[in-house]
């Protein structure tokens, strides 16, 4: 038996396929950035909503058999599978056994199976008693028909929505954060209700025909203190009325206290909730910019007139600057980009991210560069360097492009003085202010240009000038007409925007 379990665990831990499947399932169930998660969520929400609608419908109407079957078998089955999957992905049971086994081998100790299994099961059990797991489990119960009461458990399916709707989740989170205040309030409420209930019971139980049991009096106390006051039970003696007055006053105080606690909790978290929304929004796009620091440079960057910059987010530590950015009409949040948590919130796996470090301090820029690169090498970093002496440090930190405002400006001035025509030409091309622009055509694998010679492509007829080709990092200037285009070439063309657009449009797409 022991040998069997052990070999089974070893087999699973070695199987790449098993791991892959588990990872995929985990990603779909847990990673909000997974593209399939959305479809999965919609499917589950659909099941929940239909299930609840069926519950309501069947109260007064007979249910057609297929609908009943759908509700009992299909919905419950899906929920059961989901529950099992969640339990499965929560911990790696087999890995645990294997690890323990290897440790035992290493120490030449006897391998004990039961403690490991016990620990593993304990972990699974810990998951099972989390509120969301309990809700999931209860949501499966209505499938058991003999017990009619279980039908009401369909409502637990509604609670499952908690997992799938972000706003409710955030609401609960806010309340959980204030649990100390709310618990204090709850205890106070219980104390007053119970005291008042007992008092009224003692004073009126034999006078007032409506108060029969202690339950009646506590019910009365709660209805009164909450200022609902159905009036089905009311005190008849002077003493009873005095108690009523007292608990009404304390009830008002308590309600206002509860309201203020909840309101303040929300107003504290409101900006954070908003910021999370912005981040979620931006995470959906396939490529975006993270701009760190909203200073002169960032402002200038946004003032580039030629095209609008889309899919960006500004991070700045200083709330004042963020406010300024909001006033200027940009998406900004108060975050410290040098913190690991901040950048790891972004969808690093599925999006192309470019980080612009534009803060005024070199130290901070380096830190952000390192931070971004430590999260993923895939993140492209363009960093601003103020002090030219530390360029090598930025390169060491892994910045993809460096931007040296002083140097750029100095070179510009020098060029403007020494080669005015060239300055004009380059400046015009780079700023896109002139009619002529330089643009790139990236030749992908299925591009129709591939294998054609430059003479065949006839750029001149399209009023374009081929300046050169970048191939494997090398630049071929003014290639010969016989040169053939290869895949992954980057063509550098000069011409008017419309010619460039037109040209790349007709040559886009697959082989003809």
């Amino acid at each position, binding site marked *: 038996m022991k040998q069997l379990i052990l070999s089974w665990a070893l087999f699973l831990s070695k199987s790449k396929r098993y791991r892959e499947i588990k990872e995929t399932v985990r990603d779909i169930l847990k990673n909000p950035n997974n593209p399939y998660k959305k479809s999965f969520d919609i499917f589950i929400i659909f099941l929940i909503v239909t299930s609840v609608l069926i519950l309501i419908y069947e109260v007064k109407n007979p249910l057609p058999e297929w609908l009943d079957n759908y509700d009992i078998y299909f919905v419950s089955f899906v929920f059961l599978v989901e529950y099992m999957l969640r339990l499965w992905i929560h911990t790696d049971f087999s890995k645990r056994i294997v690890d323990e086994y290897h440790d035992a081998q290493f120490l030449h100790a006897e391998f004990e199976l039961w403690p490991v299994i016990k620990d593993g099961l304990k972990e699974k059990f810990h998951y099972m008693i989390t509120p969301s797991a309990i809700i999931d489990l209860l949501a499966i119960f209505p499938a058991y028909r003999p017990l009619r009461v279980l039908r009401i458990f369909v409502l637990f399916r509604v609670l499952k929505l908690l997992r799938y709707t972000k706003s409710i989740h955030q609401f609960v989170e806010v309340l959980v954060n204030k649990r100390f205040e709310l618990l204090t309030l709850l205890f106070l409420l219980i104390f007053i209700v119970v005291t008042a209930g007992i008092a009224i019971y003692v004073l009126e139980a034999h006078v007032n025909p409506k108060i029969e049991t202690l339950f009646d009096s506590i019910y009365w106390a709660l209805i009164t203190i909450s200022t609902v006051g159905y009036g089905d039970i009311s005190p008849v003696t002077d003493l009873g009325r005095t108690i009523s007055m007292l608990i009404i006053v304390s009830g008002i105080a308590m309600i206002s206290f509860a309201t203020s606690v909840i309101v303040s909790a929300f107003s504290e978290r409101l900006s954070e909730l908003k910021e999370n929304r912005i981040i979620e929004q931006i995470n959906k796009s396939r490529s975006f910019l993270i701009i760190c620091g909203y200073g002169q440079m960032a402002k200038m960057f946004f003032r580039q007139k030629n095209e609008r910059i889309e899919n960006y987010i500004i991070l700045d530590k200083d709330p004042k600057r963020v406010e300024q950015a909001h006033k200027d009409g940009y998406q900004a949040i108060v975050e410290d980009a040098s913190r690991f948590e901040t950048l790891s919130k972004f969808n690093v796996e599925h999006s192309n991210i470019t980080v612009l470090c534009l803060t005024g301090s070199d130290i901070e820029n380096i830190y952000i560069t390192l931070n971004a690169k430590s999260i993923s090498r895939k993140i492209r970093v363009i960093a601003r360097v103020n002090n030219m002496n530390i360029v090598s440090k930025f390169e060491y930190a892994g910045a993809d492009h460096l931007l040296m405002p002083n140097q750029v400006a100095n070179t510009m001035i020098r060029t403007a*003085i020494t080669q005015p025509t060239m300055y004009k030409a380059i400046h015009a091309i780079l700023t896109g202010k002139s009619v002529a622009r330089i643009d790139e055509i990236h030749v992908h694998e299925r591009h129709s240009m591939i294998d054609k010679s430059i003479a065949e492509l006839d750029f001149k007829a399209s009023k374009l000038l081929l300046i050169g080709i970048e191939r494997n990092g090398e630049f071929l200037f003014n290639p010969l007409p016989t040169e053939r285009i290869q895949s992954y070439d980057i063509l550098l063309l000069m011409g008017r925007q419309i010619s460039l657009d037109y040209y790349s449009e007709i040559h886009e797409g697959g082989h003809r």
Partner: protein
Amino acid sequence: MTSQSILLFGYGSHGRFIARGLHEDGFKIKIVESKQAYYDQAREDGYIDVEYVDVTSDNILQLLNPQNFSQLVCVMEDEHLNVFLTLSLRSLFKESYILSISDSMHTTKKLKMAGADKVIDLYEVSANKIYNILRRPVATKILEGIVMERGGVVFREILVHENSFLQDVMTDDLDLAPYGILLIGMIDEEMGHTFVFITTGINHRIDAGDTLVCMGPQNKLNMFEKMLQKEKDL
């Protein structure tokens, strides 16, 4: 290239770099500084024509004879002083070509109002660069290489002289490929000294006195120029 003379105001972080670059390109420069430390630095770096004066005084500025210089470059460290200097120079010397550097967008506006012919905005050029890195990484890299390194592929202005074979050729028919260079644009004197890109779709007739702007490897350009020179001498 004719050797121009430049009057450089300021020898701070920008001035120092510019002075070195201009010196390398064979320009005659005169440096003016109003701060002792920078003045000493300039001296130490080996510049002989350095003046230590108070640039806020009109009389002193007049004594410098800026009209004898082809360009006045204002790159003082203190941006307030830079604006003031630009304004003084403009009011004193209406004809001079003034180039200023700006550290912020507010200053850019002020410098333009003060009468600078060209203002280079530190942030604008940088912001532009970010944008270009994002949109056209290869083009940016190549153009940058052209500007920064001055080796390999460069731009060159080539004057078309009388009786050149280039004369009366239409730009569309001109093929410089055999020479290994590209015609990027030209400065057409008929159209009032404006720079025209070759790809705008307008066919130009090249006249004597026009300037062709070509791009190509340095040696190929030299050969082309030599060839034109020979043709002229013949």
